[in-house]
């Protein structure tokens, strides 16, 4: 009996406990990163730099547009949420470098030069900001956004946005 306990039960229990702890911490770390992104995305809204709700709207639009265009929807949503966040804050917050690069490209690329996911983020954020402005009409915000991006990947992102809005209207 002692041999059974020592050789089997104690090590099995120890392994199971350690594995459960590892899973709990891994899950906790993942949640912490996601929630940190959400809170950092709120910072410009709290400071009054962008209309309230811009981050959430931009993330939702960017994810849907990226999915339609075959890009990484999760990366697009995260980058859209963080689009107005200061680069120093991104660096110390443990945001992956590829996401930070998308945020930087979406904010700083020349008009018409943002490519891929950065183009999606740029268009999504512009649309979300316009939607949040006082007295904004969805059709007006969409038109103004599409007209603003006539070239390259940004135009493709704007076209995807138009299709999404039309699909949403027809299914309503």
């Amino acid at each position, binding site marked *: 009996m002692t041999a059974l306990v020592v050789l089997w039960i104690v090590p099995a229990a120890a392994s199971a406990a350690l594995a459960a702890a590892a899973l709990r911490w891994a899950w906790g770390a993942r949640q912490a990163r996601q929630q940190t992104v*959400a809170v950092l995305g709120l910072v410009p809204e709290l400071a009054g730099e962008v209309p309230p709700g811009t981050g959430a709207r931009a993330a939702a639009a960017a994810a849907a547009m990226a999915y339609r265009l075959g890009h990484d929807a999760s990366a697009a949503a995260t980058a859209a949420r963080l689009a107005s966040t200061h680069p120093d804050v991104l660096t110390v917050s443990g945001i992956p470098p590829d996401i930070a690069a998308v945020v930087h490209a979406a904010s700083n690329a020349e008009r018409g030069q943002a490519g891929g996911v950065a183009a999606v983020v740029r268009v999504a954020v512009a649309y979300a900001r316009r939607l949040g402005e006082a007295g904004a009409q969805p059709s007006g915000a969409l038109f103004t956004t599409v007209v603003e991006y006539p070239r390259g990947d940004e135009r493709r992102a704007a076209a995807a946005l138009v299709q999404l809005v039309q699909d949403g209207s027809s299914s309503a």
Partner: protein
Amino acid sequence: MAESWVVALAWVVAVAVAAASACVAHRRYAAARHAAVAGLVRALAVKDPYTGEHTARVAVYSGWIGEELGWSRRRLARLRQAALLHDVGKLAVPNVLLNKPGGLTEAEFREVQRHAHVCDDILGAVDVLRPLAAAAAGHHRRFDGEGYGAGECSRLSAVVAVADAYDAMTSTRAYRRALPQAVALAELRRRAGTQFDPACVAALLAALARRGEHHGLGHEQTEVVFDTAPPATGLGSAGVGSAGLGSAGAAERAVIASSAHRVRW
């Protein structure tokens, strides 16, 4: 017999692998928590550099108080994190109010007071920071139960309150020059038992004496340049600092100590 050894060895390996996985997962969890704290602190510093430096000093002073109180390393780490985050609610307060020279109107003061509740909301939104919310957001809760802010006055928030008030009095703000250290300490002693926990005040006094630290007018760490010299008296959001040096001087450039930080309004 040989089989038993093989089984034992296999289990040792299994436990070692599980332990290693747990260590790695725990490090990642701690890193995620550290990143969350660092991100919010940096966001605050980017928005208002004075507040960023202020929270760093409050974290140092809070650590000194906690050490004097004989707290464990783990509790001290929590205390320092809570101190770093205690003003994160000021992300929602316009800089024009944070750096306003002179007194705030009642409406403006209520706007500034909101930072305690916003702090609680922000930290409550991140599970890994939620345990710090009460300590960080409760730093304007008085020892006697009055005051404002979210949550109760816990031991951690009592320490942060003393450190916060001490730094507010010994650093130059747009609305008031730094007070001499003796004046600041006298103010803390006067309010011990009502606004501040007496044990925390005593611990700060002991820590400063033991370290031979000098702060306040003439000992400022950073050079603050103002277009118009701030007055010598004025109250901060903690309601301390009324014991000033006299009437304000004429408009002048007041260069106080080391690195340049221009406040404009």
